[in-house]
């Protein structure tokens, strides 16, 4: 009744009589909602739009769609990013990796009661081929056919062991053919989605979505009856977490250890899970002076990674020299690079420059009478100016090299990066699996400077790299993949096509007052991040009500 009292205090005595009746007031419906879990979304604006056209090109769809529509497979981040079954029970490659036969689970039902079959899979996987504007997941196969009711065959133009994870992409979910096939996907917003996932849409309001748990979900019984999604701002979120209004959110909280966890270490959880990506310095290897490995090494040796993560208030997230996070790729890392963070080594860097015949004169790199004064491109919208300044200062102090800062708003930043109009660029690198992290270095993505590139913006062109990447695409033997992965690590460390600065993370904020059983970064089978598809579902399945 206390909150009711406050309401009355605010709106005044006139309304006191009107709404203090014994039943049906706001407080009654608010807190007694049974086994409900509340997720607060900070990056989706103040309102949600009822748009479950999952395969369309919208970038802002209804949130947590992955609880309704599921992919065929999932990526196991805890095990180095390998692909595991989900709606697909098993699969096998044939014809040197150009043919994939997928066996489906037979116990899966759509939320309208119909059976999930090979027809649905053929339709869902076929849509991106039939309608390329719906190819948001960027598929690489060229055809899909039905073998029997629970088997489909996918054909690729190239050996494709390494691209299996496209079937684990939540942007390529399975949709019911019996509903989708008759719709005009260019105008249909699919307001009442029917999926294979554990939830259906109960009530959709722009400020709160209530998903209802299914009782016939193939993956098991959920411990909650409803899942609520509310929009909030980054500032309000902190207060809501501290007050216990919400159970779960995904937002970075610099100083969260002190401001949040310390207040109740048992129930206030703030977790960081590596997402396999890193913030790196990308060298434009297609132009002087960064086509010279000695210059690249010298600059990589004089990046103060610790200063950057200190400014970010994220101690311990410095990237190792390979750009592979140890949290995810522990088993795949070459032992000689484990636990290593490059320290600033001015002497070593100067020796490298001397080896390449470079001197530094008046702030510029000089060789054969030519002067180069590089600049570093960064995204000004991300507030990257601070970190760029740290790099610029360290290069100035340790080498005497004056690098210019070239901040750009997002639009200009991507344009310049893709066109190769930069010397150095602060850019994200990374992906799922070792192959996923390094794939962008393949020269198959190479374009000349001035022509837009989607990957390989640093214009890395190395036959050795290409050979290893191609071999990775042609095998699914784990030991062989590990060996190839180590060869790639060596190239990255020795030749420095890019130099990692710090690892990127999924930030997870949990208030475990109502729900326990959350995964922790020390021990996880799935990452408790809303929006991770099957991982999110697995997290929800693992929770328990506290107290009863």
């Amino acid at each position, binding site marked *: 009744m206390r909150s009711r009292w406050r309401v009355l205090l605010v*709106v005044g005595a006139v309304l006191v009589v009107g709404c203090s009746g014994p039943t049906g007031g706001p407080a009654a419906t608010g807190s007694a909602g049974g086994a409900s879990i509340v997720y607060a979304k900070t990056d989706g604006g103040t309102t949600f739009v009822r748009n479950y*056209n999952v395969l369309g*090109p*919208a970038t*802002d769809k209804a949130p947590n769609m992955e609880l309704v529509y599921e992919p065929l497979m999932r990526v196991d981040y805890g095990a180095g990013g390998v692909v595991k079954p989900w709606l697909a029970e098993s699969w096998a490659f044939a014809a040197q990796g150009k043919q994939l036969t997928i066996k489906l689970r037979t116990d899966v039902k759509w939320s309208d009661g119909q059976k999930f079959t090979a027809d649905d899979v053929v339709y869902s996987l076929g849509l991106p081929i039939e309608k390329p504007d719906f190819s948001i997941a*960027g598929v690489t196969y060229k055809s899909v056919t039905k073998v029997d009711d629970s088997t489909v065959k996918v054909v690729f133009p190239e050996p494709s062991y390494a691209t299996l994870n496209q079937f684990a992409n939540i942007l390529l979910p399975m949709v019911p053919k019996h509903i989708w096939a008759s719709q005009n996907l260019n105008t249909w*917003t699919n307001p009442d989605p029917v999926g294979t996932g554990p939830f259906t849409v109960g009530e959709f309001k722009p400020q709160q979505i209530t998903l209802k748990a299914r009782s016939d979900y193939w993956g098991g019984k959920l411990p909650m009856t409803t899942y609520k999604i509310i929009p909030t701002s980054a500032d309000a979120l902190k207060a809501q977490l501290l007050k216990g209004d919400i159970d779960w959110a995904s937002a970075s909280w610099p100083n969260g250890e002190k401001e949040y966890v310390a207040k109740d270490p048992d129930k206030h959880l703030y977790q960081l899970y590596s997402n396999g990506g890193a913030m790196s310095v990308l060298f434009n290897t297609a132009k002087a002076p960064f086509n010279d490995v000695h210059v690249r090494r010298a600059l990589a040796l004089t990046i103060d990674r610790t200063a950057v993560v200190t400014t970010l208030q994220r101690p311990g997230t410095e990237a190792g020299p390979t750009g592979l996070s140890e949290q995810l790729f522990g088993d795949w890392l070459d032992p000689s690079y484990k636990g290593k963070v490059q320290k600033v080594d001015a002497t070593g860097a100067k020796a490298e420059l001397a080896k390449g015949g470079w001197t530094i004169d008046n702030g510029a790199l000089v060789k054969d009478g030519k002067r180069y004064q590089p600049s570093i491109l960064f995204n000004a919208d991300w507030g990257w100016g601070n970190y760029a300044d740290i790099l610029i200062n360290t290069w100035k102090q340790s080498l005497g090299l004056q690098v210019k800062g070239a901040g750009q708003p997002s639009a200009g930043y991507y344009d310049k990066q893709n066109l190769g109009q930069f010397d150095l660029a602060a850019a994200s690198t990374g992906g799922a699996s070792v192959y996923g992290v390094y794939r962008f270095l393949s020269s198959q993505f190479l374009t000349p400077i001035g022509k837009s590139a*989607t990957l390989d913006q640093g214009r890395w062109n190395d036959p050795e790299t290409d050979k290893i990447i191609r071999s990775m695409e042609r095998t699914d033997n784990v030991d062989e993949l590990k060996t190839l992965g180590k060869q790639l690590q060596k190239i990255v460390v020795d030749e420095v096509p890019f130099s990692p600065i710090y690892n990127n993370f999924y930030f997870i904020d949990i208030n475990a007052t109502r729900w326990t059983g959350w995964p922790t970064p020390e021990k996880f089978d799935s990452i408790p991040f809303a929006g991770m598809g099957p991982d999110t579902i697995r997290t929800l399945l693992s929770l328990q009500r506290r107290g009863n």
Partner: protein
Amino acid sequence: MRWAFLARRLGFYLAAAAAAIGLNFLLPRLMPGDPSSAIVEELERVSGQQVPAETLMSIRAIFGNPHANLAQQFADYLRQLSHGDLGVSVVNFPVPVADLVWQALPWTLLLVGTTTITAFAIGTLLGVVAGWKAGSRFDAILTPFTTFLSSVPYFWVALLALWIFGFVLGWTPLSGGYDADLPQGFSLAYAVSVLHHGVLPAATIVFSAFGGWLLGMRNMTVTTVREDYVLLAQAKGLSPKRVMFRYAARNAMLPSFTGFAMALGGVVGGALLTEIVFSYPGIGYLLYESLQKRDYPMMQGVFLLITLTVLLANLVADLAYVLLDPRIRARG
């Protein structure tokens, strides 16, 4: 005379509206980048894969081809507009922009509309009193204080208020426009929750805005008080209240009134900072989001709506002026 004046004003506003529509069409097309490439870029970022050329073509088929003949594009745009079609939002494809605008508009009108009127009423009233007794203790304390208030950055006031009343005291909700657990509709509980959610954002807006009205009104009243007709009214022995409001304030209000009409026109634009701090579901936030995500159709739709309402409010102010101030009719 009066009709000729009106016709001329109407003509002017029609021309301004046409220019606004034209600019609204042209400006996004003069900006670097185009929406279809923006989508492609976003898709590539999300999927980490190169998007095939066919995708770009079909996206252009949906959102318009930026390389088509400009006159052709303009004709298409006008044809769309005449059907009340503001296009399809890029980031929310295939949701029409008009749907998004209609969803956000009532919240903005409610919040910014009532606060604009309240701030104007409070500020003007206090301004008259302060100006009438310029130099009195009331004036000497209130006027510098409001000057100080108007110079405090709004977002700071809003954040502080949210922290104190929302978090520390727990009197008001931390975000949103209503208690989402309640069924939407005309129920008392729902109305109470709307008020409960709106009171803090509204209070911060009024708190930061009334000072401006107060200062303007005070200064105009100070000048008006010295006019001969006010002295005459006083000399006639009319009650001070009557002289203050019917003689001084009524005339001093004219400039404030124009400002008020313009402010009403601006209501539709929303209160961007308020909506961001309090996660209020209005137009201001919609515009902010569309700018951030380069959602050109949404941007254009919101801009057009704002421009047209400002024009309409100005027209209304102009017409009201004709009634309020006889000098305009004489010159017209």
